[in-house]
């Protein structure tokens, strides 16, 4: 059973979203996603300053076997990307909700977050998939 922290929001495409104290939004991939992908060996994150619409393919995570797109859960501007992943992509496997964060956003519209899945909704979707 994969780890699904209760204080985060989720997407159907297995990204997680965290609201930081400064109002910015942090995004990563879920424990379920990293487990399904296997050992991750390469990560490409978006450039800081890039504007993204919710649903845009914005990052690439590659495991030994395959490349997968990460989709932006929100619309906004990228204000930070996790440079540590360039040398240590395995952080996505070991700390998917911590050191393995992918990028941070400033939202276009602060009201967008509630449209994402709650932890219990995401858990229910995973259970239905399996």
């Amino acid at each position, binding site marked *: 059973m994969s780890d699904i922290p209760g204080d985060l929001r989720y997407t159907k495409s297995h990204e997680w979203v965290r609201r930081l104290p400064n109002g910015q939004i942090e995004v990563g991939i879920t424990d379920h996603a990293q487990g399904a992908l*296997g*050992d991750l*060996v*390469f990560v*490409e994150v978006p450039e800081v300053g890039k504007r993204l619409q919710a649903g845009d393919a914005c990052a*690439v995570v*590659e495991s*030994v*076997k*395959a*490349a997968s797109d990460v989709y932006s859960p929100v619309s906004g501007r990228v204000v930070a990307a996790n440079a540590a992943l360039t040398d240590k992509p395995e952080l996505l496997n070991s700390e998917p909700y911590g050191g393995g964060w992918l990028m941070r956003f400033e939202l276009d519209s602060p009201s967008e977050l509630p449209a994402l899945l709650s932890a219990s909704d995401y858990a229910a979707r995973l259970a239905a998939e399996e």
Partner: protein
Amino acid sequence: MGLRTPLYDTHVREGAKLVDFGGWDMPLHYGSQLEEHQAVRGDCGVFDVSHMAVVDLAGERVRDFLSLILANDVARLKHKGKALYSCMLRPDGGVIDDLIAYFLSPTCFRLVVNAGCRDKDLAWIRRHAENFGVAVSERTDLGILAVQGPNAIAKTLPLLPSAQRAALMSLGAFAGQWFDSWFVARTGYTGEDGVEIMLPGSQAAEVWELLRAQSIAPVGLGARDTLRLEAGMNLYGNDMDENFHPLESALGWTVAFDSPGRDFIGRKALEGLSPTGGNELVGLLLDGRGVLRGHQQVMTDKGAGTVTSGTFSPTLNRSIGLARVPRNCGPQVQADIRGKLQGARIVKPPFVRRGRIMIELEKQGE
């Protein structure tokens, strides 16, 4: 539900992530593909490769038969147990499959062929065997365990009665021998020392446990792929298939033209080829960012080519691949990785052998 090897329940109990491979439910990994890869390079790992098909051929004219259907020459097998890597070709030179042939006795040879090619191989073999009075029996009763890594022999020894251990230690490269009901060969698909054990399927689970008790790590097909690619070994369906002849798939060394009277299937087509034209299969080392993958385009100074296999190499900590490119193109090429051109270099495989990096990682002059 797919086909299952005698070790299916063992894999489930070991926590394997199971995937479909050529119609078989096979272990992709048992937790971490990277750790399994490192276990084989640095110590020892065991693979279930029972999905591969074992075909025994028996008859007075079995050598004549194999001389016809194999592009390599079974006359090279002079001692019992010795193995030969060969392609089986269509008349037009396309590669039907690659296989290993073992010389068991003057009237009996064993072939081990790819799981995904089993049906067409058997049909092809049977069709030609009839003319030679050769009996073809598929050995679905057997399992195959591959024990690979620098400590593979040492860790396999305790499974044998003490009187048989010296024989295993002195087993020559690419040769096999009977140990009671097991046929053990010093072969593999990893670039490391090791053995492949063909044994009654009913014993496979028990022997797996005995190997695991020697602290041998279980290794899935995921690491098998990164290990073979580092070792520069082709995978059927990726790096070779019926659409290409062996000289376009870096398999020229397996085609034996030296005996002029040996009219093996495909010979005439290969002899009609220009030795300098066409394409060749080469190794690629990525200098740019990303991971090489099969089907990516490669731009060379002589035109476009294609990546046939690509992955992240855990030993090199870089991406490597095999690619089919115009023969004798320059060494600096570019790979189209998700729409961006990334620099790559043509290198001569193997990338890794016996735990050692065999290629220059840094560009000359840097």
